């Protein structure tokens, strides 16, 4: 029998509890999200798909911008390959922001490692991501058989899990920071809603970014999501490995966010119940 000093748990000692709870809370998030909804999990597909149709219309019909964008592949493919990882990123974070505050009852009445809340948000968005990815395969097949963009399997496909892991690390790190910050200052949620809208347009999700040497182009280039989203397209659609320098940078940033986010979350966790 172990004697436990209350309130001095380490991440290591709480890992089993975290592992046991994560699937349950992820299941709860998914279950609640798709309960009492006619389409259910269909929304995981419908959301990025309708966005893809919207942007396809905007950039190929409404304004004559497709040539300007310098996109070589069919635009729907380009947009969908960006929108699926983007949706994973943005919906993870927007759930994370509110995750501690929305579970106030649990935070103040039961103890378990608080990391479960942001982690389960990312995990449930990951399930949606996987579902949407199957539609991606369908879309690729469509353009393959039409001959617009033939698909040839390469070894670069094996690199996809690495891209996903880097994205998850970045999302978890940011998600923990956001969840914690919103618990102390509710402004964070409002601010986040604005920032995430802007962020999409500087992340090469639906429009590639200018590659000139202007000041803003250099600032946007710091965005770690650009190499990540580009890496999905490179591995999946272009059949080659992502640019080494850019992707390593994204990996490094993701790792730093994960470490910094998790450590600061841990250090603040014991104040959650009284500050919420």
């Amino acid at each position, binding site marked *: *029998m172990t004697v436990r000093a209350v309130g001095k748990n380490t991440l290591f000692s709480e890992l089993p509890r975290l592992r046991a709870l994560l699937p349950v*809370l992820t299941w709860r998030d998914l279950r609640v999200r798709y309960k009492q909804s006619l389409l259910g999990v269909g929304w995981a597909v419908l959301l990025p798909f309708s966005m893809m149709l919207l942007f396809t219309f905007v950039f190929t019909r409404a304004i004559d911008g497709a040539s300007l964008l310098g996109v070589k592949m069919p635009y729907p493919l380009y947009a969908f390959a960006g929108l699926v990882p983007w949706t994973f990123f943005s919906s993870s974070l927007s759930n994370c922001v509110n995750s501690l505050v929305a579970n106030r009852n649990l935070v103040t009445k*039961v103890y378990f490692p608080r990391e479960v809340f942001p982690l389960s948000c990312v995990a449930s968005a990951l399930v949606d991501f996987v579902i949407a990815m199957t539609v991606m395969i369908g879309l690729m097949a469509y353009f393959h058989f039409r001959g617009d963009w033939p698909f040839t399997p390469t070894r670069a496909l094996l690199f996809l899990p690495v891209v996903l892991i880097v994205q998850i690390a970045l999302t978890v790190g940011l998600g923990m920071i956001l969840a914690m910050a919103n618990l102390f200052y509710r402004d964070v949620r409002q601010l986040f809603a604005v920032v995430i809208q802007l962020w999409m347009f500087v992340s090469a999700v639906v429009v590639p970014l200018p590659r000139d040497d202007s000041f803003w182009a250099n600032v946007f280039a710091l965005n770690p999501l650009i190499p990540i989203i580009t890496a999905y397209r490179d591995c999946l659609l272009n059949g080659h490995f992502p640019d080494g320098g850019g992707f390593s940078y994204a990996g490094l940033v993701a790792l730093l966010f994960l470490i910094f986010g998790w450590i600061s979350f841990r250090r603040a966790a*014991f104040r959650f119940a009284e500050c919420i």
Partner: protein
Amino acid sequence: MGGSVVTFSHVCKRFRLRETNDTLRDLLAHGIRRLRGRTKHEGPSSFWALDDVDFEVARGQAVGIIGPNGAGKSTALKLLAGILRPDRGELLVEGRLAALIEVGAGFHGDLTGRENVFLNGAILGMTPAEVRRKLDAIVSFAGIEKFLDMPVKRYSSGMYARLGFSIAAHVEPEVLLVDEVLSVGDAVFRLRCLERMRKLVQDGTTLVFVTHDLDQVRSICRRTIVLELGRIAYQGPTRDAVGQYMSAMSRAFADRPSDLHVQSHDRHGSVELLDLRWLDADFAEIVWLRPQQEIRAELSLRLARPIRSMVVELNMRAAVEEPLLSFNSGRVGRMFGGDAGLYRLTLTLPALPLSGGQYFWNARIWDAVNGATLLDTPFRYPMVVNDGGKATGRLCLDHHWTLESTEAKTSTPQSQGEMAAGGVIGENLSIR
């Protein structure tokens, strides 16, 4: 104590009184004020919810924590559960711990009863396999078999609470913390919960039980801690602790008479209750009542207008919402009337054979002519009875016991033991 499972050593916990900076705007404003050196001092910014609290609980022991509101009972439990962290001192817990701070915390309204059992079970530390094994027991204890697949948002509050308690009661922890959760549900379920807790303790679970209900403490815990303003006022055998707590309560009443005898401005305005006091046979105010003591209630009334005839009623109930006593002047044919002015109305009662505890009174006055309500106060006039821990339940009656043999071979009783309430069992008592 070598075998202590829960150790609280010199634990202090401080809370901020004012709201912390909740929006960035506040933080900025605060920062600017500080830069300008204009920090406002608005009295103490924090208070000690627990101040140097020190106790231990041995394995398999059931310990109660009682005390008035704001004494730090729930804070102590939340510290033990790990929800809060102490500012000073150390807490040690040995073995698997489950805390029931609020029944059904973590239930999700959209999920069915069954789904919530799995969710809540996991939150309280059970594995899915464990929940599956215990599902039937949990559901039948809560008595919600028929509603298992209905979303809990459609549950009645009783069903909700029953399911919540039932899950926690089946976690089989080594240390169980329970905070004032048995005030929900009906009387039968409350009894079953107490029964279950008693069984858990018998089977070796260590229990820390926070409650306001002195009967519940008496029925489960052998040892009890009285907390008062964040400090331990007493710890020891439950019987003594309860007595200690009750006399502390009556002292608090005596110290703050202004709090007690609040003027009652009734919305009807024609009768005002200025004061309600309890006096003994010698017309001295009673600090605390003994069960076998004659008492009178003295009501100071002001009539704002002449009233020809009115009926007065005094009602009493215990902390729970059940009415216990009621004295209505109309039923004994007494009506009162008078011109506008000040009056003293006295009700003389025989000794009230009540068990120890806190009781609350209200007063109602009707116009006997047209039945209009003239005064109706809330149940806020307290009365504290100290029976020295002789009785549980609501009443403490004079009684005595005898034992005699009924076998034919002896014509005279061989032995007889007698006791008055609270007396010592006769030492010559022998059963053959």
